[in-house]
């Protein structure tokens, strides 16, 4: 099959990632690098959100580091992290054999579907922040959710025309499964004795402390306001990609404020509304800007 014999995903975290890269590259995906901003999920990467809009085909795969400040456990919980990796594949339009491709990708990292019970269990996805939703499944391997599989139906409040298929692999839990370890920090990172803990444990301890205890909240409130203002500034200047980046920034600052526990339940809804306005506004502006060119190139397409 599409398996590179030099890769050893059963004993190496990085080989598992490389094996996925090999596989998706061979199936026509651009292999991109992580977006260089702090974000809560791979879906925020412009290669997913903005590229899900419009009629142009788009196939890409990339690793995205994700930050979820409230999930920090000071390195003490065996499977909860405030920083972890997602592997994202975005295929637009969704190909007819997308499920088969996905299952083959599991095989190349060493999951044999006749030894392990693979199941597609209903799980619909919705991100009010992005004005986005889709239908799909969480994919179970022996009862563990290893991937979120979504057919995007709307993004930024617009119908996805055509629909993109999005695969999000939880890399650490998949690796723990393949390597047979119960603690994320015990994962073999490179197949040569460097563990995930060697790379990230100290990071988790310090960042958990900063997220929960240290981060200066006045500064965070200030940053939130500035990101919001800059987003509007960028929108006014008709540079929606720049505006979108500020929306991502505001979203992360909001998550940090949450971790610091300084946002009340009532305020929470209002902050979420503000982030949503920024993200949707950016998507809408992006659509406005690109729509004429798209419509010209794809006469059957309309906003």
């Amino acid at each position, binding site marked *: 099959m599409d398996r590179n014999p030099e890769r050893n995903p059963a004993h190496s975290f990085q080989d598992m990632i490389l094996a996925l890269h090999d596989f998706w590259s061979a199936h026509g995906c651009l292999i991109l690098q992580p977006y260089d901003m702090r974000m809560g999920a791979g879906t925020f990467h412009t290669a997913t959100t903005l590229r899900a809009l419009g009629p142009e085909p788009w196939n890409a795969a990339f690793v995205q580091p994700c930050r979820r400040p409230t999930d920090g456990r000071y390195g003490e919980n065996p499977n909860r992290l405030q920083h972890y990796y997602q592997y994202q594949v975005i295929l637009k339009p*969704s190909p007819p054999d997308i*499920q088969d491709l996905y299952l083959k990708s599991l095989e190349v990292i060493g999951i044999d579907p*006749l030894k392990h019970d693979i199941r*597609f269990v209903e799980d619909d996805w919705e991100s009010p922040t992005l004005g986005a939703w889709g239908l799909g*499944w969480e994919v179970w391997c022996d009862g563990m959710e290893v991937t979120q599989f979504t057919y995007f139906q709307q993004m930024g409040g617009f119908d*996805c025309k055509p*629909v993109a298929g999005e695969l999000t692999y939880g890399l650490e839990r998949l690796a723990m499964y393949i390597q047979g370890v119960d603690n994320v920090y015990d994962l073999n990172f490179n197949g040569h004795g460097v563990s995930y803990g060697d790379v990230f444990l100290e990071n988790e301890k310090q960042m958990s402390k900063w997220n929960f205890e240290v981060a200066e909240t006045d500064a965070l409130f200030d940053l939130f306001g500035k990101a919001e203002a800059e987003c509007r500034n960028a929108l006014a200047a008709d540079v929606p990609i720049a505006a979108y980046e500020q929306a991502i920034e505001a979203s992360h600052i909001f998550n940090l404020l949450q971790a610091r526990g300084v946002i009340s339940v009532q305020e929470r809804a209002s902050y979420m509304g503000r982030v949503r306005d920024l993200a949707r506004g950016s998507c809408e502006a992006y659509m406005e800007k690109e729509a004429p060119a798209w419509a010209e190139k794809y006469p*059957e397409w309309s906003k």
Partner: protein
Amino acid sequence: MSDFLLELRSEEIPARMQAGARAELEKLFRREMDATGVSVDEITVWSTPRRLALIARGLPEATEAVSEEVKGPPEGAPDQAVEGFCRKNGVARDRLEVRDVKGRPTYVAVIEKPGKATKDLLAEAIPAIVRDFSWPKSMRWGAASISTESLRWVRPLSGIVALLGDEVVECEVHGVTSGSVTLGHRFHHSGDITIGNADDYAMKLRAGHVIVDHEERQDLIRSGAARVASEAGLVLVEDEGLVIENAGLTEWPVPLLGRFEEDFLEVPPETIQLTARVNQKYFVCEDDAGNLANAFICTANIEAEDGGARVVDGNRKVLAARLSDARFFWDVDRKKTLAEHAQGLKRITFHEKLGTVANKVERVAKLARWLVKEGIVKPASSTTSAHPEPVEGSGAVPATRTSTGSARAVGELADMAEQAARLAKADLVTEMVGEFPELQGLMGGYYARAEGLPDEVAYAIRDHYKPVGQGDEVPTAPVTVAVSLADKLDTLASFFCIDERPTGSKDPFALRRAALAVIHLVLRNQLRVPFFRLILASTHRWYVSEAERQGHQLYADVYFGLQQAEGHEPNLSDVEKLVRQRFPNSDEIREQAFEGTRKLDEFFFERFKVQQREHDVRHDIIDAVSAMKVGDRKEDDLVRLLARVNALQSFMDSEDGANLLAGYKRAANLLKKEDWHGVEGEIARTGEEDPLSQVDDPDMKAVIEAKMALRHAKELSYMPEPAEKALMDALAISEPAAAQAIEAEDFAQAMAALASLRAPIDRFFDEVTVNAEEGNKRAHRLDLLAAFRAAVHNVADFSRIEG
């Protein structure tokens, strides 16, 4: 005759939607066949996660030719009309026939419709079925989705098998073409499976590791799970919902049993069961003693090469991670008391116009205490409580149960009710309920016992959401009853006061259910209280709460205190009048509370009637009783009302009842026809609006005296006829007897007293002429009938009874 097979293959259909999809497929298929005149007999519908299949047996090869006749204009009608008729029906004028229609020669167009091949009809029906198929949620996909007009299906539709007999029914739906090829199990079978016809479909799929009949898969899971449990010396905890769900997630189900660490059993069993069930779709097991065992049963979709050891091990790890979360929550939550947790309720909004959950708790606590202090909820006694709450762990009966009715018992009960109410919602802010909202109440009960609160309080916290729906257990323990009732009354009163009422099918705050729960609590526990008092107490609490929120406490307590001071049961207009007299300043919140009270009162009675109707109580009987007055108020003691309703219903089902009703109707009709309002009523005929305004008028004196003389004719001025005398005597006995029985709330006895009037009234009508020529006789007899009617009305308003 041929059998038809349709298979619609798609990517994994959510388990919860499969039953609905089967029904939808059959419905649409029948609709299409009906429309084309193909007669359909037996239909079988199956589903798996990846396919919906329909088999219709014995379809005809073609529909019959039919000839239809369409009636047109009469012969001799203007040419224009005749030609128009021909055009419309596509018939040449010289082909029209003439028939006799009701004696008139009339043009008739005979239209021959030839039979059509069933196969062709099916080829048209299949795309229609797919297009019209309704899913709870559907989606677009693939390259075609560049247009929003592209096909919608629950998940991408990937194939259609359509065979009539051995032949493919050729059709196409949005790029998916029909054929005879399908796929087997995702992992156990590779390559195409070619289906020959409806008969070999299930068999060929089985060879491809797919059991297409969902019921067979359900049976396999049910029996397989029980088997692996018993092989491990355990008993399966049956769960039909899980059986169906797992059958909807698998094409080749294989139940497998695994074990988790025994240490986890220290968390409440419900949490383990819930996380296993909801998050992982596992069954759980019990040991011989009925205790939860450290075992789970998952349903794999493969026959694993190693017998499932790896699958079980993987599932065990996932469950262990979930259970350690649950144990973590259990440990963390118990580090605080419920009272400490309850502080967190100040941060949770109950409703934007109703403040926080803490505000609600405050209202409920006061209301719960009031319910006890007012004597509405009483301390339990061994004689009045038919179903005492079991006290776990000891055979001792708490002191409150024996000192029933004493001031001390009431005080203790009031304290416990208030305490339980203050803690009942605290578990909403615990980690465990945050993770598993279904455990609300239950966890609060566990935490209450863990911190050593009295059992009564713990049970009340646990059960105060009950009864949740039709058929749910209704609490009977006094503390629980007080908290449950207070909680629901507060919810109803608060939402009604902010004008959030159920409308049509919309009832976002489940107020109908809450009202029904209140009715059940009152009836089940025989709580004796004029219902309006409950409503007023509840809206009053909202009023106080809202006035405080807005910073004007001034009228708060006065509003409710008023009606108590008057020393009789209030009605809304009294309360409104009194409060407006004393506090004429306008008070928006107060007006809202009054309006809420009025609406809630109507709402409750409407729900009560609906509830009774569902128990086959005749609506006219309910109307007849609820039209009754108690003093100057309508009857609203639900317990008494229902006792009356039941007595009346069984009376009306008896022969005496039916006959008495006939007699009553005759009397009432006669009185109405004669416009008889009694002798006093005659006074009003002078035309004045207020008949008494002229009593002191010297000019009227003679008239009045004449009337009064008539009235005093009770000392009869003539010899009554025997039947008349008999009715008078019967009334003299039965009227006070009925009144007494009603006073004693023995409504069956009251009905019996009425029944004794049946024979005399029948005889009276047979033998006595009411409209006698002599005015005094007529007046007396009409008076007698009026007295009869009044006696009947004391028991129920018979005018509202049908029949």
